């Protein structure tokens, strides 16, 4: 039978040909994505370059509310997030963070936030360099942009150095290793290498950076880079073992002498909804509820019922609270001398307000905290329609008390002073329009004062600088400086500006190695290895070349 079939080979050939034709003509599998662009279709115009630059800054929108603020605020003595029965319990997560009993599981957020910034900077530096090399862009235009990116990358690395210590230095996009390792398996050597890298990058980029302050709002200009390197030098002893106070003063003076910044008349001018006009803010994330959402302090800190105070579109989460110690640092007449008057007390009591009025220092900056009975926008007393808290006597009327009964399981829902530093805009949803302050001129003054005090135990210049800041807050001048005074003043001034952890580590402790290791409410004395965070477990898992920090 077969031979008969073969006789018809002409027909078979035709069929085979038909199939071959189909198969050959329809095997194209090129991917066609119509709604996004790929690398070969981008970076062709100058606008696209500037637009791309934004991606390196875009990372900064993660500065609030994520791992970065968790590391710098919740682990310090400023902020506590009590587990309010079920809410915020999170399997003990926040308690481990605030009590310095964390494991390598808790600190991946800051790592990915900061390294995203590093990566985006690396990529853009690479792309801009390529553009110059290929003749697509003019070197004179590209060089300041590349310098700006290097300084921004140094800012991210400064924070990596501060939080994690010994981290991989990845400074190239094209030649990045798949699994980068730290500079040295010896923690201190490695950390010194990261320090040197940050210093070198900032020194190299500073001369090329813009000095035009108004046009570089929210970006790396020369003074912001000065501030970054000053911060690096202020903690140089922590990072490398060698103090660099005089170098810090050099760069702080560069800012002061430029005359581009000065203290705002009103402390809270720096934190209003439209704070972009402040003469004091040097480096901000220009959040906007429409164009750049991501700043959500209002929901992070306020009580569920506070929605009615501001008619927010969303219910707040009743989380982040200022510590009792923080509040006492404002009102204590000895620690903070100044005009005395009635202020809210500490403990809840069974009166209409839920708190006593007591005598305390009238520091303008108490406004950083929201304390006392709470009302709706129309003046109706807010209620928490649940029990006040286990073992407490107050009713359901909401009063924010500086006192917090428990942080681990049974925190009462209205305990804790709330973060009121930034003005809350009525009627908003999740995004606030206030620009988030990273560097501020009053810090230039206080850092310089501290550096001077460190070098020669004070002197009139240092005292005068501190008192400039105190005078603006309406409190009495100091007559002398010591470590407590400087650190407390920094807490009052910079509460919730993401620098408390770093400040505490710079000062020797009374019980532990540093102030950060000392005990405070809900926290025992901690070991000094906790002054850097562990390399996150997820990072160790995905990159076998990483070495865990000592002690973890």
């Amino acid at each position, binding site marked *: 039978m077969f031979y008969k079939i073969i006789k018809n080979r002409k027909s078979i050939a035709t069929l085979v040909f038909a199939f071959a034709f189909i198969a050959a003509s329809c095997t194209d599998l090129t991917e066609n994505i119509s709604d996004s662009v790929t690398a070969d279709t981008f970076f062709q115009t100058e606008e696209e370059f500037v637009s791309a630059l*934004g991606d390196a800054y875009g990372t900064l929108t993660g500065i609030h509310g994520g791992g970065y603020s968790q590391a710098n605020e919740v682990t310090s003595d400023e902020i506590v997030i009590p587990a309010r029965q079920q809410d915020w319990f999170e399997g003990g997560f926040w308690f481990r963070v605030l009590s310095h009993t964390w494991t390598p599981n808790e600190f991946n957020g800051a790592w990915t936030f900061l390294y995203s910034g590093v990566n985006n900077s690396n990529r853009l530096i690479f792309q801009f360099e390529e553009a110059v090399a290929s003749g697509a862009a003019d070197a004179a235009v590209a060089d300041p942009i590349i310098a700006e990116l290097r300084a921004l990358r140094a800012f991210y690395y400064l924070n990596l150095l501060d939080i994690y210590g010994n981290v991989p230095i990845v400074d190239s996009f094209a030649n990045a290793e798949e699994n980068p390792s730290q500079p040295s398996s010896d923690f201190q050597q490695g950390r010194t290498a990261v320090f040197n890298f940050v210093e070198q990058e900032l020194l190299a980029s500073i001369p090329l950076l813009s000095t035009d302050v108004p046009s570089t709002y929210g970006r790396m200009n020369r003074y912001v880079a000065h501030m970054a390197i000053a911060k690096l030098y202020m903690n140089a002893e922590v990072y490398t073992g060698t103090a660099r106070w005089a170098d810090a003063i050099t760069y702080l003076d560069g800012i002061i002498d430029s005359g581009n910044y000065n203290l705002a008349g009103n402390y809270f001018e720096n934190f209003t909804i439209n704070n972009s006009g402040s003469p004091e803010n040097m480096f901000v994330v220009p959040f906007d509820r429409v164009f750049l959402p991501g700043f959500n302090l209002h929901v992070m800190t306020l009580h569920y019922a506070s929605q009615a105070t501001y008619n927010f579109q969303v219910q707040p989460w009743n989380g982040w609270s200022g510590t009792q110690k923080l509040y006492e640092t404002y009102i204590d007449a000895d620690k903070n001398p100044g005009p005395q008057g009635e202020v809210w007390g500490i403990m809840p009591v069974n009166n209409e307000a839920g708190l006593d009025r007591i005598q305390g220092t009238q520091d303008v900056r108490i406004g950083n905290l929201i304390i006392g009975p709470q009302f709706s926008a129309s003046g109706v007393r807010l209620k928490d329609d649940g029990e006040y808290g286990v073992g407490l006597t107050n009713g359901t009327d909401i009063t924010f008390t500086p006192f917090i009964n428990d942080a681990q399981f049974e925190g009462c829902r209205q305990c804790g002073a709330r973060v009121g530093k930034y003005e809350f805009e009525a009627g908003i949803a999740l995004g606030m329009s206030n620009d988030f302050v990273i560097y501020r001129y009053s810090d230039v003054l206080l850092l310089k004062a501290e550096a001077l005090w460190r070098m020669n135990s004070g002197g009139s210049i240092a005292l005068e600088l501190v008192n400039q800041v105190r005078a603006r807050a309406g409190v009495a001048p100091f007559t002398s400086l010591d470590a407590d005074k400087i650190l407390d003043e920094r807490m009052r001034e910079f509460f919730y500006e993401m620098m408390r952890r770093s400040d505490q580590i710079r000062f020797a402790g009374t019980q532990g190695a540093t102030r950060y290791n000392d005990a405070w409410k809900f926290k025992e004395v901690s070991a000094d290895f906790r002054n850097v965070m562990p390399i996150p477990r*997820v990072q160790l898992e995905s990159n076998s070349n990483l070495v865990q920090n000592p002690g973890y």
Partner: protein
Amino acid sequence: MFNKATSILTVLLLGVLMFAAVQTADAQSTEISGVVTDQATGETLPGASVVLAGTSTGTSTDMEGRYSLTVPSLDGTLIFSSVGFQTLEIPIDGQTTINASLSVLVLSGGELVVVGYGTQERRQITGSVSSIQEEGFVTGNVRDVADMIQGKVPGLQIAQGQGGNPNASQTIRLRGISSFGANQEPLVVVDGIIGATLDSVDPNDIASVDVLKDASASAIYGTRGSAGVILITTKSGRSGEDLSVSYNAYTTIETVENRNEVLSADEYRSFSQQVGISIQDFGANTDWFDEVSQTGSNNVHSLAVSGGTENMNYRLSGNYRDREGIQKYTGSEQIGARLNLSHWALDRKLKLTSNVAVTNRDEALGHSDAYKFVQIFNPTAPVRADGFENLGGYFDQNLFDYKNPVNMIETATRDREIRSYNVSLRADYDFNELIPNLSASAFYSLDNRSVKQQNFYSRTNNQFGGATQAALGPGSASQSLVDTQSELFEATANYIADLTQRLTFESFVGYSYNQTTNDGFSAAGGDFVTDAVGVNNFQFAQDFNQGLGSVNSFRNENKIIGVFGRANINFDQTYFLNASIRREGSSRFGADNKWGNFWALGAGVDIANLVDLGFFEVLRARVSMGKTGQDAPFSGISIQQFAPQGNFFVDGRFIQSFGPISNANPDLKWEEKTELNVGVDFEMLENRLRGSAEYYNSITSDLLFSVGVPVPPNLFGQTWRNVGEIENSGVEISLAYDALQSVTSGVNWTTQLNLTLFGETMLNKFESDEVRLLATAGSPGQNSTTLIRIKEGEPIGQIWGPQFSRIGEQGQWLYLNQDGNEVGFGALTPDDRRVLGNGLPGFQLGWSNNINVGNFDMSMFFRGVFGHQLVNLPSLFYQAPAQMSSYNVLKTAMDIPELTASPQFSSFQVEDADFVRLQNLSVGYTVPLNSEMINRLRVYVSGNNLFTITGYSGINPEVRHTDINPGEINQGFTLGGALAPGIERRPNWFTTRSVNIGINLDF
């Protein structure tokens, strides 16, 4: 591109016609004619094949069983054959009229089973294929095909994790989990349309469902077959049949079968006194379950008209379904129509088939969250009260994660509209005259589905409308429209050769081109001046004026191209060999790895043909092996893409910044599954006991998953990679027994049992051997509480946490640590956690009984699933008596009055969830009629989900194959999905039972 495919179709059709024309031209010599009949009945046999032995000369009979064949001389032998009949050879011996009378093939196993691209006789199948005909379907209140075959196929798991949600589909898993990053549901093929959706076919239009279970059976669908293939064949008309009309209708009453019982108002008051917790007593007695619930109903009507002439047949059907869900204001309304048309031309050499189906479905989705809040809303609170005007008059309290469920369902709407149509055209041409038993076909289909979803939350809505007691909210609205269009072009050629008397060779080759386009548009905004227009006019949303509204659109395409072939060898009707191969490419994969090869081999032997086995009438053994694949889950997955990345502040204004949104992976390639299947089929006791047993073992490698990668150097911490390997094995047994067959008394009873033993789904390899903890319990306070562990070398689905010991004297939770000592929460270390259960079952049972007594028929179907555990999250969040200070609690709180601590996860909330359910019971009566007009009238009553026997205390013991709450946990590892089975979450619908009354009427 697709113009090319359609033009190819045209070219091919023209080619087919030209061949036909050429071939009919060279006929001369002597003609033989005759009639072919069935020996038993004497009826003529249309379509029987007549071939001159040893040549390519042949023909087939017409509608009257007549043939005429031109032969070169009056020598030789004619071979007559027809499906289902024994082949007959008659020497010509000079005759010019030869009538043949064929006898029926008595060998069993001759029934035709639909397999990929065609049909095969049951006995020739060497892989694992389950076939369910219409009479085997689950009847009653069914929504789609999944409901109809639930429990009927060993190895096929169909679970309704969402209880009585009228708009939720079932999850379908074949032989365990074959993928966790890509598609896990079997491929659905409806009348040749690959990748169709189940709800585009009305259950009333389905003639049979065939499930290709193992890799050797599904390998012909290559790249999309690794989760199995469900082949759906719709009903069609019969040629030469008079017009017949069939009408089916039923009406359903649906009520709550099980729900989480909570404290009544009185119990809330008394229990709070008992445990000394102060509560807010608002003085009312409200059953919040009742407030949001109603009795559901379902009214279904189906009308079909079918018939045919000598050269064509047709079936036209219309279906209407109107369902009201058990949550107020939920339900669906569906109208569908289908036309199946076949036409023969050119002496029945050319067959043209066209199917057209249209479905319109409108759904009111309701609010799952309402069921979360009915569990905890204060039972002493009134539904409405004065002073809550801004909330539409609905009472509310200022508590976290706590909303009035009546406000939720009455001040918001969530609607979905699904419009789908599909069209397929098929041309089959018989090249018998050119080469005997050669045929070719071309197939084109267009499957279009558009889904519109509209959500509206009014200004008085407290969930997303922003309303509080103090002020009206801005309200919010969103609308999305997603359009999916899939075009498929396929060309195949079939060839059958009787190489010798005993050896038959069948083969086919084909080409397939499939292109899918997705595009969509969505808008969302709020801040309405009035609620009056709802979602219908976004100009009323002031958000857009302030730049706060959002508008999005997308479009992407993907292609799958394949060439494939299959060969079957049948030796002496005793030994069978099957082999298939498919080479396929997908546009989604990395530039270096777009193509893959998928193959299958199988062998079978009919032992009963070789030796006399006494009481065995049939005993077949078969073994097969195959490799299938799985496509990537979405387009663009392997390339780096750039997209807008928020805004950048330059010189006092915001400009849009662009940046990458994904890591690239040019090496991304197919998931591949290799499966071994061994099976035995038997019939014994004079065919009264029939059964099969199968063992399978499959290994899926190169699993696609989004895994953590180091940052730096990667831009993002997650990249899609081929990681991991999982292994499944199991035993499936299917038995059917005709327990009673009495011709005299008219009593028949057939019972059928399906058993499946599932091995554990082993994660043989993963990205690394690190432990992953995933699937967090949720807010409030349990966002870091992981429920599931994943570890290389361990089974998938491990529920992981601390071991509960008892409630301590101070009312605190006490646990057993790794050394067996009792410790409190603070002393627990991560090492004290252990495996608390597994969410995947070990054993599944389906037991059906069909009984006929005279004109009565009855069917009863039990389904059971065993060996799985569930994490009962309602009990985690709502069982602690301390919650009474704010919320209502579950009734089970009264079992633990001594507990004062807040909720904490442990083995306390992990429960065995074995269950047996009476899935369906139905009793019908066929009215004896002596009517010229009415052929058949049957009325019936049936019930679905009538009772469940289980020790599980939650709402629904059904297996949760996939976590409904996928997302990302803060350790940077993707949670949920198929890696986190076994979690009952809080926003959960009740389970329901339904009772139907129905009628079948044929004219």
